[in-house]
């Protein structure tokens, strides 16, 4: 059963179209990550779903309940949608217990037990209940904000770059703990993030936004390997783009013949490969290239290769395991794992 359905959402601020006909369906209990460059409308989308902002057009339907139909909207406080902002937005005048209990009914039985449960849920020390927000670290604040939103057992949870204020080390552990909590609670979640790794590992469904439009949505694997265009590809990782000629089966390019779904197209086209598709060997198969530069990154290396064919130089980067790496300046054979992706004529 589908839980949240957004259709044709549009929202303008003056001349900027912050949202442009965005449609998305989110399954019950699933986790959606929204990625996109800065200013692409991610926050606006969450604000519209949460009810802080009215769309100019389009509908928001949660479990059959219409929450927004154009500018007519249901009030935010009656939607049962949790929201965690970038900095947590904890109430500075209330302690942790006050923050956690803010959304509970006044006459909630077993309030103390509920608070204990919540603080346990986000793996914090119950002694923190009497602390003020400014006495917590950034990661602790974020977890309190999450617990506060979960206290009301929301039907949908919205997270707007919840980890971006944390530094890298902390970020990973908080993210893991938050993912665990959300899975345990089984809440449908939409998270906005700038971090591709975060998006790919967190999501059941990945949505890519650009210029207010939702350009692609699908399983992370699908979006990573079959992006609709080169911008989407680059948002999620590095890519190598080459000119190629479409053959009866597959394509041919400087790297030789590669498998590809041509979809009945013919003539010339541009293809995209991920840097980790390349294999380097001293013995072949594949055409030869010279190692121009090696950027050591621990387990993996980014190797810049130079290939000269018919007098034309082609430079590209491969990500390969750093063990048994050939020397800088040596010639290696380059082969390609898997298929190349044909980019659209405009891409």
């Amino acid at each position, binding site marked *: 059963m589908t839980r949240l359905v957004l259709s044709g959402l549009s929202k303008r601020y003056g001349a900027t179209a912050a949202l442009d006909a965005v449609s998305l369906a989110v399954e019950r209990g699933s986790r959606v990550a929204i990625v996109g460059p800065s200013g692409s409308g991610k926050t606006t989308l969450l604000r519209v779903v949460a009810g802080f902002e009215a769309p100019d057009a389009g509908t928001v339907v949660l479990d059959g309940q219409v929450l927004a139909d154009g500018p*007519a*909207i249901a*009030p*935010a406080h009656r939607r049962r949608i949790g929201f965690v*902002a970038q900095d947590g*937005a904890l*109430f*500075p005048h209330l302690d942790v217990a006050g923050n956690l209990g803010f959304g509970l009914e006044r006459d909630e039985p077993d309030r103390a037990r509920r608070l204990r449960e919540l603080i346990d849920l986000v793996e914090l020390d119950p002694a923190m209940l009497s602390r003020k927000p400014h006495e917590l670290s950034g990661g602790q604040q974020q977890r309190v904000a999450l617990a506060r939103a979960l206290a009301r057992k929301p039907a949908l949870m919205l997270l707007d770059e919840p980890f971006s204020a944390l530094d890298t080390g902390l970020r990973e552990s908080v993210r893991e703990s938050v993912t665990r909590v959300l899975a345990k609670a089984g809440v449908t979640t939409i998270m906005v993030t700038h971090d591709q790794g975060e998006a790919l590992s967190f999501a059941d469904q990945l949505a890519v936004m650009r210029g207010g439009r939702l350009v692609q949505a699908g399983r992370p694997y699908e979006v990573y390997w079959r992006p609709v265009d080169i911008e989407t590809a680059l948002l999620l990782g590095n890519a190598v783009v080459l000119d190629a000629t479409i053959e009866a089966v597959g394509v041919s390019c400087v790297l030789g013949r590669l498998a590809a779904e041509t979809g009945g197209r013919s003539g010339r086209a541009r293809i995209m490969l991920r840097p980790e598709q390349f294999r380097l060997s001293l013995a072949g198969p594949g055409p030869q290239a010279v190692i121009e530069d090696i950027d050591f990154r621990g387990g993996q290396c980014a190797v810049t290769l130079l290939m000269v064919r018919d007098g034309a130089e082609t430079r590209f980067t491969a990500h390969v395991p750093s063990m048994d790496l050939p020397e800088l300046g040596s010639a290696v054979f380059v082969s390609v794992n898997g298929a190349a992706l044909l980019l659209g004529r405009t891409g």
Partner: protein
Amino acid sequence: MPALPLRRQRNLAGRTMLLLAGGAALCALLPLGFIGWIAIETGWQTALALIWRPRVGELLANTLLLEICTLPPAILLALALAWLTERSDMPGASFLSWLTVAPLAVPAFVQSYAWVSLFPRFHGLPAAALVSVLAYLPFLYLPVAAQMRRLDPELEHAAASLGQSPARIVLRVVLPQLRLAVCGGGLLVGLHLLAEYGLYAMIRFDTFTTAIIDQFQSSYNGPAANMLAGVLVLSCAGLIGLEWLLRGHARYARIGSGAPRPAPRRKLGRWRLPALALPLALASLGLGVPALTLSRWLMAGGDASWQQGALAAAMATTLGYAAAGALAAVAAALPMAWLSVRAPSRATRFLESCHSYPGALPGVVVALALVTVTVRIALPLYQTVATVVLAYVLMLLPRALVGLRAGIAQVPIELERAAASLGRNPARTLLAVTLPLAAPGIAAAMALVAMGVATELTATLLLAPNGTRTLATEFWALTSELDYAKAAPYAVLMILLSLPMTALLHAQARKTLNA
């Protein structure tokens, strides 16, 4: 779950606020309209005849001399004191910082009363400049000290590592960063010098403001007073323009993340104790002299001076006016403060400058404007409580606005949204989140306005209904009759009323640093 009702958001709050702020801005434009109107009404010929007089030249010279003799020494003293209290290891630095700010609690005309009654022949420019420096130094010291504390020591370290000598570091790194604070504080002091009446009248030094009030009191609302007011407003505008030029357009912001480390304090070595001489000397002049005079007169007057029935009545009247002024000013500034925090745009910035500019207008101009308007258009309002309170509102609107803005900024919209997403409706959000967080700022704004009203003299003299006696006007009447002993208790009460404001301003200046 029952179906939720769908409603269009009509942003009623925003529109109402815009309407109210527009109304307040219109009221605030009244004095400006008055100036424009008298300029047009008087006509070139008459205006020129009234302005092109030796008397006006004399006043202009006096005003210029006063600014020149007061501002540079005040700036140098503020820099020295700020450096000593914020960046050196002078003993008791934080106490001395309080001591430097404390003269704010002594109204300027009380300060000059203290000097005149101690040295009856203390008159003219030197006296005016000395008392002005003592009375207004805190206005420069506060922002300069605040900025001094905020300076990022890393910049100085960076300059040192680039081979700059300590003297050149002060010149090329430290002073430029203090420029905004010096210019802002200097402008404030300069405007006070133009606007102050009591201080200079008491010390018999003629400025535009004293001349306007003399003129007004001798011949009522003649065009002569209005023309002088016009020249006074032009002087204010000139000062603002000068500050704008000197301030430059650079913004000094810290680049990079994280809170700056507190700057290390410079070791004074054997100068540690001698350095105390400067703050202590200023404190003994700015606080010691009023304390000495007041205690002398209080002793001379004995118990009798406290038992005047008029004293209690004046106190009650003052408190009443202060409360009314504070409530009215805060109510008038609230919509604007809300808009400028929550919905900043070009339109709201324009409205905001309409709210802020009266802060640069001398009280006497605001008062003259209201006199003229009430006499010509709404005579029943002439010399009524309503008009006085309106004058207070206009004069203190900027002060209320600044305080309210700070209060409302304590409640970022994200917090209200968080409350909504946690199921609180707008009314309960207001009660549970917005009010508790904004209340301290609102209360502080009210207190600042109330205390401004409590020591206001000029507009009260010109506008209050006949027979109204506030602490300030009663003090003024008594000192005019040279009854210094009877006046002393009034001065003491005004100082006591101003103390909380002084503490508040000092605390605010410190707090902005931690923010």
